[in-house]
Structures are given as C-alpha cells and as structure tokens.
C-alpha cells in the first residue's frame, strides 16, 4: 500500500480551536500522528512581570474561554494558601456553585460538539439550547455569561440572594428534565453507538501512565478527580467521582453526560447547605514562597505552580492545563484508527487549545 500523509487542521469543521495533526496513513489506517501547536500561543504566564497578583486573576481567567472561573479559583486558592488566608464558608460554597455551573455548560458544549463530530446536527442544537439556560443563570447572577470574574483573593465578589438561589434550582429542574429526554438519544442511539463504541480505546494502565486527567482518565476506570482533594466546600458535600471502565469514546461521552447530572446534584447540595455570613475577607500583605494548587476543571485537573518573592509581582506562574496532559493520549489512540474516526477521537479528549498553549 502507498503511504499517504494527510494534514488534519489547524482549520477543520469539527475543531473549535486550531490544532494541527500530521497523519501518516497506510491505506485508510493511521500509522502515525504528530500534533503541532503554536497557533494561539499568547504567553500569558509571562504577564506576571507587568501585572500585580490581584490583576493576574483576570488574566488567568482568560486562559480559557470555557473553564475561566475554575482557572481563577485555582489561582486564588493557591495565593490564599501562600498568604495563609482563610476564606469565609459562604464564599467557599458560592465557589462550588459557580464552578459546577461552569462544568455543566462546558460539558453541554462538549456533548453538542461531539454529536456534531459524527454529523448529528440536531442533537448538537438540542444540547446547545439547554446550555443557554446555564449561561443565562451565569449572566443573571454574576453579570457575564462565561468570564464570570467572581473570584478575588480572599473570597468572591458577588453574592446570591435567596430569590436567585430559588431561580437557579427551578432552572436546574427544567434542565434536568430536558436532559433526561436526550439521554436515550446520546447513549442508546444506533448511530451514536456505531460511531463511538470501541473507538480510541485506552486501558486503565495506559491512561494512568500517560498522565491523563479528567473524564479521559475516568472513562478508563481510574478513579481520579481533583475534587477528592476537598478544596472549597467539597469537604461538606457528598461526592463520588463518575467512573466508566470501557475506555473508548462512548465511555468518555457517558462520563461527561453523567457528570452533568452529578453537577446538578452538587449545586443542589451546595445551595441547601449555603451558610450565611461574609463573602470575602480583606487581604493585606504580599505573597511570598512557593505553592502548588489543583482543582478539577471540566476537562480534568489543572495544576498551578506559583512562586512569589514578597513583591506585588509574582516571580513565576506556571499553569499545566488539562488538555496539555491529555494530548499525549492522541498519539496513542490515533495509530490504528481509521481516518473517518479521527474527528471523533480528537474530540473525545475535549481539546481546548487556548488552554494548552496559554
């Protein structure tokens, strides 16, 4: 057979963001895949030299357009740990509510894009219709749809009124009913199963050794979720990670679909236990020392390494985003797959390239 090299991306109908894959094919089967980056590299980590550590919250929020709130939360938790600040309990619960809302809208976005990757356009529109409700909650409570900017060092900027929490609960109820209606389609439909079952299989051992994170790892049967670290208010909220064992694209889809329901449950618990009191404490002084901070983003665990030297500018801010850890999975999953499965497999890790390159 002749060897063919096909460039996949950086602009491709299924890719929301630019990543380039050089695919070497033997007939229809991929033998080698080499990713190339550098289309959206912005060097945001370098900005610590000209922005002070309070302003950096708004910079790290803009690393990713989907999991922005969780980036800011991770950064703030890191700085709080470094400066020994105890956040008020109400702020910790509010952080959980907004972070889980973020997870929901990110997963709904992904479920839509995933349906789109195998050509199921109407399902894509249904998921995005539901997602709009979550974005409306975000805008009504924080003032913005995605870049919510609620985190500050020492707490949160916005509070939820009783009326708003009731509004969130009733909206979540309708979201839940509509999602239940789509459950049979995304999980049992012949077309969906045909395109996803058995594609891009990763065993638990492979996934763990590649250092994968998030739903990609949990779909292979490894119970690893940074929320088990009990940051924010997760020590007061009952939580068990969603785990599937098949390790294929279908399992990843199932994990994310079930996590949307889990997030609804977590938000209900957090609203039910929401304590009264302050939402932020005053911050005095400047950070010094070094710290690592981790939270679970929709795509997996994000890792921050922060080093400060007692001035208002940090010395180094290092962000390891979940997609950065998940890209090596592509190099393992793609060889052996057919060309027509590439979009499905690439999307199954939920690639966020702006995150990856920062």
């Amino acid at each position, binding site marked *: 057979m002749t060897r063919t090299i096909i460039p996949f991306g950086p602009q491709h109908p299924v890719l929301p963001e630019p990543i380039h894959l050089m695919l070497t094919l033997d007939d229809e089967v991929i033998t080698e895949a*080499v990713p190339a980056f*550098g289309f959206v590299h912005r060097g945001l980590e370098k900005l610590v030299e000209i922005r002070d550590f309070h302003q950096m919250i708004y910079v790290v929020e803009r690393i990713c357009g989907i999991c922005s709130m969780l980036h800011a939360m991770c950064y703030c938790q890191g700085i709080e740990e470094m400066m020994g600040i105890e956040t008020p309990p109400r702020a910790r619960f509010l952080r959980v509510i907004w972070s889980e809302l973020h997870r929901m809208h990110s997963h709904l976005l992904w479920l839509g894009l995933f349906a789109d990757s195998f050509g199921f356009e109407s399902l894509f529109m249904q998921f995005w219709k539901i997602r709009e409700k979550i974005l409306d909650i975000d805008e009504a409570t924080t003032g913005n749809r995605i870049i919510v900017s609620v985190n500050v060092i020492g707490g949160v900027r916005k509070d939820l009124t009783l009326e708003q929490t009731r509004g969130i609960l009733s909206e979540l109820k309708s979201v839940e009913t509509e999602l239940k209606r789509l459950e049979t389609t995304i999980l049992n439909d012949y077309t969906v199963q045909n395109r996803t079952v058995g594609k891009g299989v990763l065993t638990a051992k492979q996934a763990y050794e*590649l*250092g994968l994170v998030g739903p990609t790892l949990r779909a292979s049967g490894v119970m690893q979720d940074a929320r088990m670290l009990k940051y924010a208010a997760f020590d007061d909220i009952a939580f068990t990670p969603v785990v599937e064992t098949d390790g294929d694209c279908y399992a990843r889809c199932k994990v994310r679909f079930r996590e949307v329901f889990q997030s609804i449950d977590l938000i209900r618990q957090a609203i039910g236990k929401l304590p009264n009191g302050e939402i932020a404490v005053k911050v005095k002084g400047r950070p010094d020392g070094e710290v690592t901070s981790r939270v679970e983003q929709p795509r997996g665990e994000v890792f921050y*390494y922060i080093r400060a030297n007692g001035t208002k500018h940090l010395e180094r801010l290092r962000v390891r985003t979940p997609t950065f850890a998940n890209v090596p999975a592509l190099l393992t999953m793609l060889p052996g797959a057919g060309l027509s499965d590439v979009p499905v497999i690439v999307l199954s890790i939920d690639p966020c390239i702006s995150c990856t390159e920062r």
Partner: protein
Amino acid sequence: MQGEIMDIGLDNLLGETARIKVEGYRFVTISCVEINEIRMELLYHFDRNFQLKHLRLSISRDCRAPSISPVYFAAFLVENEIQDLFGIRFHGLTVDYDRTLYLEKDVKTAPFCKFAVVEKSPVCEEKTP
C-alpha cells in the same frame, strides 16, 4: 508547598524518575524557573493518590538536560515547551520539535527569559549516567 521536595543533580535525574515511576507515580508536569543569568531551575512534579512529589534540578542555562520522555512519554510535550520558551535543550527526546512547537524556525531567543540569551551552538553536554 504541598508534597515532598527532593534536590537532584543531572546525573541522578533519570535514575530518580525511573524509581518514582516504579513506585506508581503519575507524571504531572515540569516547571521551569529562571533564577539568574546563569542558573535555571527545573521542577519535576509527580502525583500518586493526590500526594505530590517534586524533584528540583538546578541547571546551567547552556547545558543540555537529559529528557525524561523515555521514562514518562507524556513529558515530551512540556520538555519541548521549555526548549521553546526558556531555551534549555533536552537530549533523548522521543518527539523533538527542535524549538518549533510554539516558535517559528528562525527564532533564536528564548521569549520567557528575563535575561536575553541567544542560543549558542554547539551547546555543552553535561555528563549523564
């Protein structure tokens, strides 16, 4: 910083990494910090059951470091990133982009360094195990 920190040298980096892998640790990432005009610091982060372990390696700017990607395959991406942004070269990389992961081919400087150093060639080799 959460977790155990261990100072290592260039000669026992690969040995320690292999030992950590046998112990069942997962590779998290490598952080590169610029210390001064000459020294750089590489921090290797590993995780097992939410317990972090860090290896701290101090390295001269113009020396090659051994790549840990033969041990942890996932490290190739972050090592290529450090090559691009900080100009530290790694040898033994499983996939080497030769400083073109983020940068254009003709870029010779390291954009994340405060002290501008143009890459000299050939870079010196420090002894490896």
